[in-house]
């Protein structure tokens, strides 16, 4: 059964709290027990607690499949790009190097490329992916476009990304803050103003007001927002 068309996957990095519930849940999947397929990284812990969750974006024209010499990576009619077929995968690493989002992993123990397949074993039978089910902050969301638009007026889904000459459209959406909904207090400022604790202290902050807008607006700003 294909993943129903009306359901989408949405990533909202501004909401991520780095708790790794998604990573721990992903590792519970019976098809890759113990090995999480989702990535979650601190961008730069020395300066911020910001973290970034990354699932497979499920590209409309998947670069990973295009560069695969063995035709091991298949995309279903529902747009879900599956992990490499075990029987075909050569372990050549082309997909790992080519993916613009850095998603596939080479599992050298198995000589097999593995990546997020949007919990196909769950989503194809009407359940949500495990990461989006458990995510306590809503940074990962699986549901309809109507739901996400109703719940999150401050941001809009973006699924078009530019990597040099290459334009990529994806099944998975990144939520990008709308300019009209810049956080209150920021005076409409956009683009990752980082707050320094030292700038908020009595000793140094006589006249400066540094709002805390550490959101990734700069990262995922895109046309059509």
């Amino acid at each position, binding site marked *: 059964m294909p993943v129903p068309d009306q359901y989408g996957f949405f990533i909202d990095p*501004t*909401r*991520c*709290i*780095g*708790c*790794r*519930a998604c*990573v*721990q*849940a992903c*590792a*519970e999947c019976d098809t890759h*027990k*113990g090995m999480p397929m989702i990535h979650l990284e601190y961008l730069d*812990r*020395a*300066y*911020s*607690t*910001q*973290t970034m969750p990354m699932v497979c974006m499920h590209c409309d024209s998947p670069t990973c499949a295009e560069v695969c010499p063995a035709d091991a990576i298949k995309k279903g009619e529902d747009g879900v790009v599956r992990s490499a077929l075990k029987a075909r995968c050569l372990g050549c690493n082309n997909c790992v190097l080519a993916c613009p989002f850095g998603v596939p992993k080479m599992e050298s123990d198995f000589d097999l490329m593995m990546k997020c397949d949007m919990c196909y074993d769950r989503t194809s039978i009407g359940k*949500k992916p*495990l990461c989006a*089910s*458990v*995510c*306590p*902050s*809503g940074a990962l969301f699986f549901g309809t476009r109507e739901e996400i638009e109703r*719940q*999150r*007026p*401050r941001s809009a889904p973006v699924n078009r990304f530019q990597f040099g000459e290459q334009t990529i459209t994806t099944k998975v959406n990144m939520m990008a803050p709308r300019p009209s909904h810049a*956080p*209150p*207090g*920021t005076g409409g400022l956009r683009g990752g103003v980082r*707050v*320094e*604790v*030292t*700038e*908020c*202290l*009595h*000793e*140094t*902050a*006589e*006249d*400066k*007001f540094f*709002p*805390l*807008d*550490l*959101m990734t607006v700069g990262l995922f700003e895109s046309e059509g927002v």
Partner: protein
Amino acid sequence: MATQPATTRDILERFGPHRAYALNGNGVGTEPDRLVKTHCCFCGQQCGIQLKVNGNRVVGFEPWEEFPFNRGMLCPKGVKRYLQGSHPDRLLHAYQRDPAAPAGFRPLSYAAAVEQVAAAIQRIQAQHGNDAFAVLSGASLTNEKAYLMGKFARMCLKTANIDYNGRLCMVSAGAANKLAFGIDRAANPWSDIVSAEVVWISGANIAECAPITTHYIWQARENGARVIVVDPRITPIARTCDLFLPIKPGRDIALFNGIFHLMIENDWLDCDFIEEHTLGFDKVAEHVREWTPRRTAEVTGIAERLIRQAAEWWGRARTSFLLHARGIEHHTHGVQNVLGAINMVLASGRIGRPGCGYATITGQGNGQGGREHGQKCDQLPGGRDIAKPEHRAQVAAVWGIQPDELPGPGVDAYEIFRKIDRGEVRGLLSICFNPKVSLPDNAFVGRMLDKLEFYVAIDFFLNETARHAEIVLPGSLQEEDEGTVTQIEGRVIKINKCVDPPGEARQDWRIVQDIAAALGRKRGFTFANPREIFEELRRASAGGVADYAGITYERIEQEFGVFWPCPSDDHPGTSRLFEDGCWNPVARGQGRFYFPDGKARFHVAAYSPPAEDIDDDYPIILTTGRVVSQFLSGTQTRRIGPLVDQYANPRVEMHPRLAGRLGIADGEWATIASRRGSCTLRAQVVTTIRPDTVFVPYHWAGARSINQVTIAAQDPISKIPEFKVCAVRVFKADAAPEFEEM
């Protein structure tokens, strides 16, 4: 003597903590044959979860999306909690201390162990009096067990000395809520957070300690809320907030008073509400006159402009929700801090209406219910006061004893250890409490355990404290029993049994009843199941403030939990307190709040510095807290491999400005030393903390325990220890420390 019978290394090898990564017993199927709807065993949010069960083993989890509080959401602890069952460290027998046995403990039959416990209790009480035997209990126990522990101490052991680990958690908020509102419970359901215009968060690392609450806050922000975070660190919830106030640890009252000052100055007050529903405004107004923005900035260390901005947002809001947690409560003036926060809420009039709320964030699983039903030293079931004659009479009647047979108030958990030092307490029974890790200045705690004549621990793993026990009785994991828990919002929920206790392990309430029987005092301890205990708890709480009389197991299941107070079968439960026209048994129609006149109380919250302020010898502030992947003293979570790997060792967080001055680079070993002790950990150099403060999480034991360093100073009212501030020196370590604990 209750000293450790073998070296820590030997005990570790046998009893752990070992890290479980997969289910014990290779080749056993993990396909579930049933799903059990229950709740997570960890924090006060008590997220709904379905546990996958195969035979007598919990083998995994499945989200429970229908449960309204968390709708399937979980944090990493909830996801991996299933790994605590079938764990290689699980205690399957009773043990007796025996230095000649391998790892210092030899198995003995459960019946023989219970006999020995009863004999020791009788011996100590006969020689030294009833109060010489103390009980330490815990707030992760169900309401039924918490109720039974209180009844067991008072009615069976006839000792005044029972207290619990909620002493480290909820007592400052509880005491202040009672002083201000006459009741101690979150005033609102979490659904009120999402319609607040301003969400004020003081001293609460929500993203790590109450992760699901994050979703409510983000949803409030989507709806246009401004989020104000007051914390010495830019925690993950602070990262994208609208206003961040990096407060100097221990100065919260100053901030609350400063905000109150600005509310008065700018007439951001709800005068009608203050006039009609409160007492004591004028005294507070007089007191905060001196808290000018300038002075507030000087004391709190927060830039004046940010204080003014916060006051304006708070003052002008039409709806708001104020949340706080241990960050303002773990202080020698924790009660005063909370009163300061409540003053701000009362002056705004924004309480008791949709979108207008106030709550402390409960920490432990049953932090709420655990403080209501009688395991707290001064309390009887239903939130009753053990010193009040009418309350004693009510509970004595339910228990079938004379009121004068009930002991009087006991002392707090830390004072019980001081009583051991003074020879006033000679024997101890503990359950669900690991004070050797969780109490401050824990070298003292270890010495006091050594001093006990007899110590019996009921637990499912041999935690660091239980290593001192003469007898260890194998208790039950949360999934091995049923019962109710009262979660963060005041919603009573139901824990459902998934599996039977393995081996000789027993459900905790059975163990307690077996001890009562062995003492020849069975009367009152012949419950056949938790449901029977709950039925008695309902009767014992009836008419009290924490009234559970109308709550049944069936209603909980049907209604996804029932909020207390719920005085009768046809009462819907009370999700939001203090609403217009509400009735309570204290005010009896006179008003919304739980005082005879129905009015809430303002209290002057006077600022005083921490018990141990910094000086030339100890010039840096140490503050402690939690990380998302560990829970409390780590008895469970330090045994779950994937959670340990997520954050394996405590690190000391410090600002690069401080690290530079100390000559410490990121990842290097740094020693944190106080007047009590020291701890050497790797430095994590981050700009997300005040430069005058270092932070260390407290979940670890032995040489990695920061509670070797913390101070045992306590709030005079709540007796909560000052975990959040003490003075330390920090310097680069000569060499890497040796950690014997895993």
